[in-house]
C-alpha cells in the first residue's frame, strides 16, 4: 500500500518522521472506522436502545494499530536496507537457495510418507489402544483425503495453470457414482472405485470441451458455475439422487470381498484376530493413503513425460506451445480429465467412509479449501500441497485442543470460533511473505547434469 510509495523516498533523517506520519495516518483511518462501528454499544433498555460509550476501547484499538504499523514499517525498512547492502541471491524459499529447497522437500516427502505409514500404530501406542486412537486415525483419513484432492487439483492448477474453482463437482460425481452404483446395482467398492474415476473424467471432458477456450478469470467463473450446477442438480433431481436428504446406508468397504463384521465370514475371524470395529477404520486409512500415493506417483511420472512437459509449457506460454505443434485443446483436456478422475476416486472413497452423502458436502467452500491447499503449498509442488493440507485441515482440528487458552481468556472462550479469523490472518501473512506458496521452486523434469531447482520468480502461474 503506502509502503511501496514510501520506498521511493530517499532514506535519511526524514525517514523516521515519515514512518511516524504514516502510522499516524493509519491510526486516523482506524479511528474513522471505529467511530460508527465501535464507539457506542447499543443495548436494549427500558426506553428503546441504550447507548453505552466505549471510547477507551476505540483509543486502545487506534493505539494498537499505530504501534503495529510503526513496527511493520520499521521491520520493512530494516529489511530493505539489508537487501540494498546485499543485493544478489535473495531467494524466497525460507531464505534458502533453490537447491537446498529440493533437498528439504525430498526429505519432507519421505518424512511425510514414513509418518503416514506408521500413524495408526504410533497413535495406538501413544493413546493406549486402537479404539482410543480413533480420533487420530479419523483425522489422518480426513487429511489424506484432502492431500489426494490437492494432488489431483495440482495437475490442473499447478502444472497446466488452469484455474479451476469447481473441482468439488468431480468429487461429488465420484461420491454419487459410488453411492448410486452400490445402492442400485449392488456393485462392490473395488469395482466402483475405477468407475467413479472414469465417470468423473468423463464429466471433466464434458465440461472441458466447451470451456477450455476460455482463459484466466473467465475459465474460473465457468468452472465455479459448473460446481454449483452439479450441486443444484444433486439437490433437485430427487428421483435419482434423493435430493437434499442425500443417500444413506451406502455399503461399507470390504477387505477385497471380506466384510469387516463380527461373524464367521468376517475379516477378524478369517485372519484369526479378535473382532475390533477399528479394523475397518485402519483399513480405510491405508486405502486412502494408497490412493493418495498413487496420485502422487502418477503425477510425478507424468511430469517427466512429454504430456507433463506440455502441461507446464502450456502454463508458461500457450502461444509458443501452439507454434511448436502442441494441440493445446487436447493437452488441457487431458489435464482436466486426469485431475477430475483423481477427484472422483477421492469422492467415492469419501462416500464409502461416510456411509452417507448429501449435496451439502459438496459446496463451494470445499472447492475453495482444496484450491487454497494447492495455492498455499506452492503451485506444482507435491510436498508443499501435502504440508498445506495438513495445515489447512489439521490446523482447525488442533484448535479444538487448545483448552488451556480458557485459563487465559476466561471460561467462555472457545478457540474453535476463532478459526476463520486465524485462517484469514494466516492467508494475509502468506500473501505478504510467501505469495508463491510454501514451496515455490520448480524442479526441472530432466537435466544433463545435476537437477537444479528453478526459483519461483521465473516460473509462470498460468493464465488459464
Amino acid at each position, binding site marked *: 500500500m503506502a509502503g511501496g510509495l514510501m520506498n521511493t523516498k530517499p532514506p535519511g533523517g526524514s525517514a523516521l518522521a515519515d514512518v511516524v506520519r504514516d502510522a499516524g495516518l493509519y491510526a486516523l483511518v482506524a479511528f474513522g472506522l471505529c467511530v460508527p462501528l465501535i464507539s457506542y454499544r447499543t443495548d436494549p433498555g427500558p426506553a428503546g436502545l441504550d447507548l453505552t460509550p466505549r471510547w477507551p476501547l476505540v483509543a486502545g484499538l487506534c493505539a494498537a494499530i499505530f504501534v503495529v504499523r510503526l513496527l511493520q514499517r520499521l521491520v520493512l525498512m530494516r529489511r530493505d536496507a539489508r537487501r540494498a547492502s546485499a543485493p544478489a541471491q535473495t531467494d524466497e524459499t525460507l531464505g534458502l537457495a533453490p537447491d537446498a529447497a529440493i533437498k528439504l522437500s525430498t526429505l519432507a516427502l519421505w518424512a511425510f510418507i514414513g509418518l503416514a505409514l506408521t500413524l495408526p500404530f504410533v497413535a495406538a501406542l501413544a493413546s493406549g489402544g486402537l479404539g482410543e486412537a480413533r480420533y487420530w486415525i479419523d483425522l489422518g483419513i480426513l487429511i489424506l483425503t484432502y492431500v489426494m484432492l490437492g494432488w489431483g487439483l495440482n495437475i490442473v492448477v499447478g502444472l497446466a495453470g488452469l484455474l479451476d474453482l469447481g473441482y468439488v463437482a468431480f468429487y461429488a460425481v465420484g461420491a454419487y457414482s459410488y453411492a448410486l452404483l452400490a445402492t442400485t446395482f449392488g456393485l462392490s467398492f473395488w469395482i466402483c472405485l475405477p468407475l467413479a474415476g472414469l465417470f468423473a473424467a468423463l464429466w471433466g471432458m464434458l465440461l472441458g470441451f466447451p470451456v477450455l477456450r476460455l482463459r484466466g478469470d473467465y475459465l474460473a467463473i465457468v468452472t465455479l458455475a459448473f460446481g454449483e450446477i452439479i450441486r443444484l442438480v444433486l439437490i433437485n433431481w430427487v428421483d435419482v439422487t434423493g435430493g437434499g436428504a442425500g443417500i444413506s446406508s451406502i455399503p461399507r468397504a470390504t477387505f477385497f470381498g471380506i466384510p469387516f463384521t463380527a461373524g464367521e465370514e468376517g475379516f477378524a475371524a478369517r485372519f484369526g484376530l479378535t473382532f475390533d470395529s477399528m479394523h475397518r477404520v485402519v483399513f480405510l486409512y491405508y486405502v486412502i493413503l494408497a490412493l493418495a500415493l498413487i496420485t502422487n506417483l*502418477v503425477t510425478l*511420472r*507424468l511430469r517427466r*513425460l*512429454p*504430456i507433463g*512437459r*506440455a502441461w*507446464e*509449457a502450456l502454463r*508458461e*506460454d500457450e*502461444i*509458443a*506451445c*501452439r*507454434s*511448436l*505443434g*502442441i*494441440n*493445446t485443446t487436447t493437452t488441457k483436456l*487431458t489435464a482436466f480429465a486426469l485431475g477430475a478422475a483423481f477427484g472422483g476416486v477421492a469422492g467415492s472413497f469419501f462416500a464409502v467412509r461416510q456411509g452417507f452423502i448429501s449435496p451439502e458436502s459438496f459446496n463451494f467452500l470445499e472447492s475453495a479449501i482444496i484450491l487454497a491447499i494447492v495455492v498455499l503449498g506452492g503451485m506444482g509442488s507435491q510436498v508443499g500441497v501435502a504440508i498445506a493440507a495438513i495445515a489447512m485441515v489439521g490446523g482447525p482440528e488442533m484448535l479444538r485442543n487448545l483448552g488451556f487458552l480458557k485459563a487465559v481468556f476466561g471460561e467462555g472462550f472457545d478457540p474453535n470460533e476463532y478459526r476463520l479469523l486465524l485462517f484469514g490472518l494466516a492467508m494475509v501473512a502468506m500473501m505478504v511473505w510467501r505469495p508463491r506458496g510454501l514451496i515455490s521452486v*520448480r524442479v*526441472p*523434469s*530432466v*537435466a*544433463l*547434469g*545435476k*537437477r*537444479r531447482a*528453478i*526459483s519461483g520468480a*521465473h*516460473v*509462470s502461474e498460468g493464465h488459464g
Partner: protein
Amino acid sequence: MGPVPDMDGVVLAVEHLTMRFGGLTAVGDLSFDVRRGDITALIGPNGAGKTTVFNCITGFYKPTEGRLTLAHADGSRHLLERLPNHAVNRTARVARTFQNIRLFQGMTVLENLLVAQHAPLMRASGLSVLGLLGAGSYRRAEAAAIERAKEWLGRIDLMGRADDPAGDLPYGAQRRLEIARAMCTDPVLLCLDEPAAGLNPRESGELNALLRHIRDAHDTSVLLIEHDMSVVMEISDHVVVLDYGVKIADGTPGEVRADPRVIAAYLGVEDEEVAEVDAEVGLAVTHLEPQA
C-alpha cells in the same frame, strides 16, 4: 480448389493473401514465393503488415482471402490457411519465432528443446501409457531427443547452460535458443520474426552464421522479417518489400535496394533524405533516379 500452382523449387507460395481487421486492410492481395533452400527476407517500414503475413502463414490468423500452399520435398502439399493452428507446425512443418521472445521461462534450456519435440516423444510414449509404465522404447526415444537437443545446444553455444532456466539467459542467447527450439520441430520452413532485434553487432554476426548453417546443412528454408539491413543484405537470397500491406518490390537484395519505390517507402519522397538513408544502408547513390 483452384488450379494447383506450379511448385517447382518453391516451398511456400503465397497467393492473393488478404487480411482485413474490420475496415482495416492490413495485407492486401499479396503474392510471393519462398524458394526451397533460400533465405527470404520480408522487409518494410513499421506497420507494413509483415507480422500479419507471418501470423497468417503460421496459422495464428485465418486470412480473409488468399491461398498459402506449402510443398514438402516429397511433393505433398499443405494448404496452410485451412489447417488448425498447431497443425501448421505438426503436419505442414512450419516453425516460427516471435518478435518478443516467447520461451518457456521457468523451464530449463534443455526442457525448452524437449517440449519442441513433443509430437515424436508423445508417439514414443504411447500417449503416455507406455511412458507411465517405463517402457524401454520410450526411454530410448527420450535419449535420442536429448541427443538432438544437445546437438543444437552445441550449435548455439549454450551447452554449459542446459540446466539453467531459460529466463536466466542473456537476451542474445534467448534469441538463439528460440531459433534452436523452432528447429527442433524439424521444419521445412522456418519463419523468424525480427531475429536480430536487440542484438549487438557481434551477436548478429553469430546469428548470420547460424542462419546460413540452417539453410545449408538442413532441409529448411528460411523466411525472416528484419529491420537490420546488415543482416538482410548479407544473408538473404531474396527480398520481398511490403508497404501498407502491399508488395512494392520483390527480387535479389541488390535489385531491391536499387528500387526507387523501396527507398521512397522507407524515406518518404524527399530526394535529399533518400541520399542520406541510402548512405546509411551502404549504397552507392549514383544510379538513383529522382522520385516520380
